[in-house]
């Protein structure tokens, strides 16, 4: 693991679940971790640049912004790059992972409504000649509530 400054760790530990909702949130965060707004902003910026922080932003439950599904494909190894690149070109695709399984390509499709999702899945099937498994969310038992980081 990359070395993290005390301030970087404190910001993740204290504010990954909730940050203050006020016009100057970084001022409030600085007070809470005994730092200055300038240092907080600089540290967050650095973490974003190095990739340890994916973003400061809202976590939105599925369904709020429209319809979505988890899709999976069984792609022949020699076509994986080509098919993955094609899938990633759609603006409606916002996560695309290779996984170790016969179903080796997994991605999330989000559109304004279910017809929009169906349309993207159909276009991918037409373009690639491969079947797309459609695994829409039926029930959520836990949605990204954050994660206790162990800073060993």
């Amino acid at each position, binding site marked *: 693991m990359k070395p993290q400054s005390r301030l970087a760790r404190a910001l993740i530990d204290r504010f990954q679940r909730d940050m203050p909702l006020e016009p100057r949130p970084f001022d409030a965060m600085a007070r809470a971790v005994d730092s200055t707004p300038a240092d907080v*902003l600089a540290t967050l910026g650095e973490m974003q640049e190095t990739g340890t922080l994916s973003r400061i932003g809202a976590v939105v439950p599925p369904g709020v912004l429209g319809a979505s599904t988890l899709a999976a494909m069984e792609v022949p190894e020699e076509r994986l790059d080509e098919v993955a690149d094609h899938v990633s070109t759609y603006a409606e695709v916002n996560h695309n992972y290779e996984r170790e399984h016969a179903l080796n390509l997994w991605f999330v499709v989000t559109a304004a409504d279910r017809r929009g999702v169906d349309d993207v899945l159909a276009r991918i099937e037409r373009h690639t000649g491969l079947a797309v498994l459609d695994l829409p969310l039926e029930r959520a038992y836990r949605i990204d509530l954050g994660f206790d980081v162990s800073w060993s």
Partner: protein
Amino acid sequence: MSATVVIDDLDRRLVRAMQAGLPLAPRPYHAVAEALGVAPGEVMARVKSLLAHGAIRRIGAVPNHYALGYRANGMTVWDVDDDAVDAAGGAVGALDFVTHCYRRPRRPPLWPYNLFAMVHGKDRAEVEDKAGRIALLLGGAARGRDILYSTRILKKTGLRLAG
């Protein structure tokens, strides 16, 4: 959940912008307000209401688990009796190390699993240990299981700030 939340077009643009990420500026909501062409007070009021109604679950500093040293990302999947899956999902979702837990349809014969629980670890042994704890909890309710490790992230973006 969210199905009953009614949001208008401005809410939708605001949620998209907030999901993509707040600017690292002293007054980030002012910057969002400017980008959307509305008053800052309007943005603050709407964000409060979206949080209260669950259309935004939380606003926070979202870490990149991979960059923090959690190199193993395992999607653990389970085939649980339809009668038992909701109780099982509730129990698995309550485990502190499970970040996401969902029920999805089976697609036999290719895909026999209906319960998904996402687990992160510093290595695969840690993920397997955690999957073992889920297996213990599910007991005889789970007929089959697998762990799908991600080997490459091909695209991961928040939604863009759209007009």
